[in-house]
């Protein structure tokens, strides 16, 4: 059993309203020194078998078709160390 992580973030040119709202709120809450915040999604995918190339290819396909909306989002797949 292995765990694969899929991180999904809005493409840099797409408006991240949530991230901006958080960044704007930070100074008011007493946090300084943050220039920007972006908010995305993190998926933990538990595989039944090992995270071999074939499995990773499957997860990438899953990310491409289901987990991310590639019109507005980028994704990155990594294996939990």
């Amino acid at each position, binding site marked *: 059993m292995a765990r694969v992580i899929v991180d999904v973030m809005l493409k840099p*040119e797409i408006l991240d309203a949530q991230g901006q709202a958080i960044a704007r709120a930070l100074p008011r809450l007493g946090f300084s020194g943050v220039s920007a915040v972006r908010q995305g999604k993190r998926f933990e995918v538990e595989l039944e078998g090992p995270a071999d190339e074939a499995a990773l290819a499957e997860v990438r396909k899953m990310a491409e078709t289901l987990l991310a909306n590639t019109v*507005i989002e980028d994704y990155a797949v990594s294996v939990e160390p």
Partner: protein
Amino acid sequence: MSERADKRGGQAPDPNLDTVERAEGTPDERQPYAELGMKLDEYERVRDILGRRPTSSELAIYSVMWSEHCSYKSSKVHLRQFGTKAPESEALLVGMGENAGVVDIGDGWAATFKIESHNHPSYVEPHQGAATGVGGIVRDIMSMGARPIAVMDALRFGAADAHDTRRVLPGVVEGISHYGNCLGLPNIGGEVVFDPCYIGNPLVNALCVGLLRKDQIKLATAPGPGNKVVLFGALTGPDGIGGASVLASATFEDESHAKRPSVQVGDPFMEKLLIECCLELYQADVVVGIQDLGAAGVSCATTELAAKGTGGMDVKLELVPLRDPSLRPEEILMSESQERMMAVVTPDDIDAFMAICTKWDIPATVIGEVTDSGRLVMTWYGETIVDIPPGTAADDGPVYERPFHEPAGQTALNADTPARLARPDDLRATLLKLLGSPNLASKEWVTSQYDRYVRGNTVLAQPADAGVLRISEVMPGAEETTRGIALSTDGNGRYARLDPYAGAQLALAEAYRNVAVTGARPLAVTNCLNFGSPEDPEVMWQFAEATRGLADACKILGVPVTGGNVSFYNQTGSTPIHPTPVVGVLGVIDDVAGRVRSGFTGPDEKVILLGE
């Protein structure tokens, strides 16, 4: 001068900038007008108007302003009938041509409403496409000086069980639901229709209605030399400027400019703040003219405001606050970033204006000034990149008399009547089949995702045939009234396919009846005309017939068209959707407590059939 201008001021001049001076010196430089959707003769007209080749920024402006979407170049000759055949109406306060029409509903109140399409974006990215459709129509209503009070949505999808419908429908409904709910606008009705013809071209038509005091109508105009031009709302980013990339990359060799997103992403929270901010600005009476930023963004707002005002405007384009500092001037001009407005404010009121924006956390920037030069002049760090007569972009776009003729199979289609079908012998099976069809099924899966109660004035919403709203606590200090308004949207693409003239009339008649049965007096009409390509003479015939039918019916019923929207190019390959005019009717009830519900309210009630 802004901080950024200072920064840039110290640097060498931008070698990639296409200035007016440079345009004069390089008359033969090839320009990507065709890539921007302009025809050669249109491009040549621009050269004639300017007496030189346009700069790339000017080309950006003309190409968006003269697009079908902004200039109505194919539909204009037909839409004129809505004016020439318009019935006398004492209720009409603002007719077609402004952001939305305004009607007098009595007791000093006026209502403004309009329906608009966001079909193509909703196919590409259903959630954001539909959401920004709601956002756009709401800003139209705000720009008239009104408080938006409700929305409706008329939807068309492919077959309910088609694969792509499963992608598009949930996304569209979620987008409308999220954006509308977050704005606090009750959704008081709409339609969901399935037909295979919409599989590659779903229709997402959103309607918004707003209320204002009759003497507080705002218009999109920039009068008064010396008055300030303020851009306020969201920052400008690279939204929906896929087309602009050809301009930027023509002068600017950079990967990041070659690939710009074509989808716009909305921020309903920002729009909710904009609504409250605008209303406070109106209350404080610090707005001379106002315009929302729609499809053609800064290009549209500046040219239209200037054209309808004193006639001139100076804009320092580098003052536009950006979300992405790498944007080029051409891209800023074409950006479709959402949740932005432009206002004209006197110098005396500017501090009060800015204070209200600060209260609502709305970024606001003075980017220019009204002039009496008759020219719209834009500079970029001191260099002139636009110098045009604004009316030529805003009002004098091309007008086409597109050829049209009846579709080849039209007679045969009509001759093929149900009489040909075998009589069903099993009524039970027929009934079950009907009941099971998606078009007759409950729409609750959709409507339960919409807030119909917010603002506390919803008298009727689903499952009623028309939405009814009480008019109460709309604006602080305004007198209360017993009046209410009723609204319905209807349309039937199958009828319109068989006979576009009668189909459009039936759509009007249905909406009119739905409003009337609540007890309301129908007053005015808005419409969204969804058709295939205007370059197809058969589609153009459908369009001509439908507009003629609607105009004639409006005259007979005595309700003027106050505004609307045309959506062309709804087709997959060469197959157009059914012609789908969607008609919205607004009515007024003098005493809203007397509204009539549909359905039985008690035992022993009599059933009476009216009409033939």
